[in-house]
């Protein structure tokens, strides 16, 4: 069968509309989460408390979208009893919005920590290490949402691959932060906070990877979770 999924063309126009609507809601949720992450990183790097507080308090919007999309999916499952690619789409959406909601939680964490760090007058040079990791994670999230929107397996696999870099970068930041704590014990508290931010960013990378794995399941019908990249490529290409 052609790998490109055709999610419209159901005999029922209403069903087409329902699927299209839920899909566009997921993309809207993705956009919101992407903005939250970008703002969280920006707040951290620029010590902008206003943005930090906005991020810390805006998670409710993402949560509300998760609940609404979940409800839409439940109704479609109950009323349409979808099969094949339609079923995979709904399963993918239900899983994806959980990941997006958790990304939102991580962004919220970034906001809270940014507020605390700015209270302590920590200099932005302390978390310059996060800049690169932050950019990497933002790109990864953007690409994973793109892969979902375009249902593109190759994009998804490339993004999954880039999670390895994020993990390596995270390990490297942790080593630097440990060194700093050993050198100057007075900075331990703030450095720990920076490490939590690094951890939050790394987790966002993991969730973006999950979104990509869901995309592969949607398009190919294969569950590639917990398999090595080489095996994924072997099975899919």
């Amino acid at each position, binding site marked *: *069968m052609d790998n490109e999924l055709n999610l419209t063309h159901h*005999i029922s126009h209403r069903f087409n509309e329902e699927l299209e609507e839920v899909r566009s809601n997921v993309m809207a949720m993705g956009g919101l989460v992407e903005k939250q992450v970008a703002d969280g990183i920006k707040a951290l790097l620029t010590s902008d408390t206003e943005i930090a507080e906005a991020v810390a308090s805006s998670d409710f919007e993402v949560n509300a979208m998760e609940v609404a999309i979940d409800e839409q999916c439940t109704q479609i499952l109950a009323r349409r009893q979808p*099969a094949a690619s339609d*079923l995979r789409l709904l399963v993918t959406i239900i899983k994806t919005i959980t990941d997006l909601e958790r990304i939102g939680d991580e962004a919220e964490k970034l906001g809270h920590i940014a507020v605390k760090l700015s209270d302590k007058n920590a200099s932005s040079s302390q978390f310059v290490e996060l800049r690169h990791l932050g950019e990497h994670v933002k790109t990864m999230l953007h690409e994973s949402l793109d892969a979902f929107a375009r249902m593109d397996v190759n994009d998804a696999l490339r993004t999954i691959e880039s999670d390895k870099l994020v993990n390596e970068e995270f390990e490297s930041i942790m080593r630097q932060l440990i060194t700093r704590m050993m050198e100057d014990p007075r900075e331990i508290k703030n450095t720990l906070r920076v490490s939590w931010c690094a951890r939050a960013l790394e987790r966002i990378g993991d969730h973006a990877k999950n979104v990509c794995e869901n995309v592969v399941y949607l398009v190919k*019908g*294969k569950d590639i979770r917990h398999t090595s990249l080489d095996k994924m490529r072997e099975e899919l290409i």
Partner: protein
Amino acid sequence: MDANIKLKNELVDDTQTGLKTLQGNSTADMEQEIGATIGQQFVDKPKMQARNVDVFYGEKQAIFDVNMDFGEHEVVALIGPSGCGKTTFLRCLNRMNDTIPICKVTGDISLDGEDIHSKAMDPVLLRARVGMVFQKPNPFPKSVYDNVAYGARLHGLASNKAELDEIVTTSLQRAGLFDEVKDRLQEPGTGLSGGQQQRLCIARTIAVSPEVILMDEPASALDPIATAIIEELIDELRQNYTIAIVTHSMQQAARVSQRTAYFHLGKLVEIGETNQIFTNPQHELTENYITGRFG
């Protein structure tokens, strides 16, 4: 009306409907490339095997080169749009098509390795081994007891009344109907509800100890509760029989079968494990059909 005549008339009606639908297919549709059958056509322990089966109604070919097995203790669902040949193919399996003069079946169909078209095979005995349950419940205009006892008497399965009673009771129990009708065994079978009548027909089929049961949309005329009871029964019967079921309900095929075969324009397009067919079909036509898309 005599039960056999009624049965034959229903068959002819069904066939004519199938033919009309077949004739309604445009040439362009017929030319659409379907390709070779995809999926798991054959099994390790086949009960019935169909090889290169073609069916013609007069000049018109209804089934094209179907190759597949029906395994022991499995339920195989045959799905596809109206006129795709699934019922025609099902009827080949116990030579019900012999009753239609213009129908010609070629290819090999075997039961336990034995050619069902061989001269040694008595069609009446074949139909006892490969029983059939139809779309509309069609109890004979006889008592509940006689409906179930009919086949057993015909095939001389009981040597005395006690044995016949035992066959009737066991069959009704297996069909999940005994408790509901035990006090009215002598009342007409036609007086039962639709779901009960269908289970009575299943009991009648079981009474002659078949090895394979063919079901042609057995629950399409029933309400959801009666349907659920029939589906539960199908699942239980699987322990002892091979079952082939034609159904228009995707959900029913998904619920009751282990393998699903998708027919389109008389060809077997795809066959595979039901789990796979309903989550990740390989052929675009199968995908379009089960998701309700335009072909």
